């Protein structure tokens, strides 16, 4: 009897085993099919899987908000002499005289890496990372057939507009082209004058001008994200991490120019833009690329803050606009403070909640975009540190718990973070430290960067 019972039990176990195998196979096959069918068309499904929901409110403005003026950003304020001490230091910035063989990451090898990174943008659109518009390939001029450079120049604005079947086809086509040309992320949002610079200056040519010089009324802004190298950013702040920054700017300039040409051949006026013409982060939030953060940078689900942003202003509007997303960044930033702790200049706010006005205590606040709820940075302190070390910093980017390589376990932790209540975020932050992520000023990281053959 017992033997019979045992055999029945074993038979049941074998059946269970087969069932289990069948379920596992089905689950595996379903996951594989889902992964293979991932495309731009299925972005919504992708976002759902990433734990992203449409943001109810991406921005909170008060009634004092005014579009920001380009002359007030820290680069222009320094260049134009409104911050004389910084300007004096800036004049010696970016030169080979800053090379310091004794400091890890500041050697001639590292310096060469940085300058090589910036070579593309400085050749194609000089000054655009510092927010200077209408320069190089980011020209506002919409060349027509009459302005051909040479007989075989076909990259001019076509007179008639291409007719897409529907908005979905148009949206997919533009994003597909952007990704082919090198963008890692792409979103489309309506143009919003609140996010555009109110007026422009070009300190290199000592010019001031306004939107009346822009060649058309932009209807949409195509916002593109470009990942910066994780390994290079583990060395921040050094020339090595800045090499990754410069390389991202070079890729932005190349890709946004190519996308602008693509649009013009389809008959839509377009202007490529990097840090110029408008504010990248609100446009990127609006285009659904990510959320704002304590350090003021965009946090994306894919790369955290380790990316740079480019955009294309265009009259193309036959598209489905992307929606802002939320995946728990603001809640996490309220408790984390890791960027504020890592900031060598103490420039990042330690306030628990974001505010409409800066609270950093610096008498200069003209560089803050007031009237919108966010954590306001003391940009004078931040940029002052850049001048002190003769390099872009990026310690906040390296320290951020969202800055992780694209491995599965970080995506899992991100989803747990988004789903967990506030007090657990403290634990997440502590675990990030314990597990050894987010180190800055780490001389060993520079050696590892140059030594590591796996990433070659």
């Amino acid at each position, binding site marked *: 009897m017992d033997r019979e019972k045992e055999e029945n039990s074993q038979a049941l176990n074998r059946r269970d085993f087969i069932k289990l195998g069948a379920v596992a196979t089905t689950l595996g096959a379903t996951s594989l099919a889902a992964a293979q069918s991932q495309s731009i068309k299925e972005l919504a499904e992708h976002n759902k899987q990433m734990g992203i929901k449409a943001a109810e409110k991406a921005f909170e403005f008060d009634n004092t908000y005014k579009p920001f003026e380009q002359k007030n950003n820290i680069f222009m304020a320094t260049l134009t002499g409104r911050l004389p001490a910084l300007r004096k230091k800036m004049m010696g910035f970016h030169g080979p005289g800053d090379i310091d063989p004794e400091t890890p990451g500041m050697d001639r090898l590292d310096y060469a890496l940085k300058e090589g990174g910036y070579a593309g943008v400085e050749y194609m659109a000089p000054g655009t990372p510092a927010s200077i518009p209408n320069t190089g390939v980011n020209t506002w001029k919409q060349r027509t057939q009459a302005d051909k450079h040479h007989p075989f120049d076909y990259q001019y604005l076509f007179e008639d507009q291409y007719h897409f079947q529907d908005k979905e086809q148009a949206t997919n086509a533009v994003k597909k082209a952007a990704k082919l040309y090198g963008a890692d992320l792409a979103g489309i949002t309506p143009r919003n004058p609140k996010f555009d610079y109110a007026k422009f200056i070009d300190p290199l040519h000592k010019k001031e001008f306004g939107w009346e010089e822009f060649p058309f009324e932009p209807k949409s802004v195509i916002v593109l994200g470009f990942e910066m190298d994780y390994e290079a950013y583990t060395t921040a702040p050094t020339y090595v991490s800045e090499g990754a920054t410069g390389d991202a700017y070079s890729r932005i300039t190349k890709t946004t120019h190519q996308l602008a040409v693509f649009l013009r051949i389809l008959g839509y006026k377009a202007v490529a833009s990097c840090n110029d013409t408008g504010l990248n982060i609100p446009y990127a939030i609006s285009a659904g690329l990510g959320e704002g953060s304590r350090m003021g940078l965009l946090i994306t689900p894919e790369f955290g803050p380790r990316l740079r942003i480019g955009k294309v202003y265009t009259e193309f509007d036959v598209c489905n606009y992307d929606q802002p997303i939320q995946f728990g960044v603001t809640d996490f930033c309220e408790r984390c403070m890791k960027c504020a702790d890592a900031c060598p200049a103490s420039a990042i706010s330690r306030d628990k909640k974001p505010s409409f006005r800066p609270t950093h205590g610096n008498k200069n606040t003209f560089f803050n975009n007031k009237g919108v709820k966010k954590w306001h940075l003391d940009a004078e302190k931040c940029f002052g540190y850049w001048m002190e070390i003769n390099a872009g910093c990026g310690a906040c980017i390296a320290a951020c718990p969202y800055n992780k390589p694209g491995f599965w376990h970080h995506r899992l932790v991100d989803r747990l973070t988004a789903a967990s209540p506030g007090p657990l975020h403290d634990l997440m932050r502590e675990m990030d430290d314990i597990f050894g992520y987010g180190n800055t000023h780490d001389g060993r990281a520079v050696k590892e960067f140059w030594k590591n053959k*796996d990433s070659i």
Partner: protein
Amino acid sequence: MNIFSGIEILFFWLGVLTTLSVGVLFYLNRAYRFDWKSWSLSGMGVFLLIFCVAWSASSVLEGEPQAAALGLVFFGCPAVVFFLLARRLVIPGKNAEND
């Protein structure tokens, strides 16, 4: 010639490990007759063991050795504890036998 990336090789071996672990559990069940508590503990142990291997190997691949080491501690140790508890339930100790 690197046809497969490190993460692809890792997930292949995780598949092998998962299959072997499930096989071993069913083999042991034939020998020792697991009850629901033994199934739960050994199942948790297998899950944590596989998670531990996946976490630590992924951390090595991304160049974060400290995260790999801590992964062994945080996920590997509980896995061992679950296996030991399951063993105690399945194979009673000498004291239990004397009783």
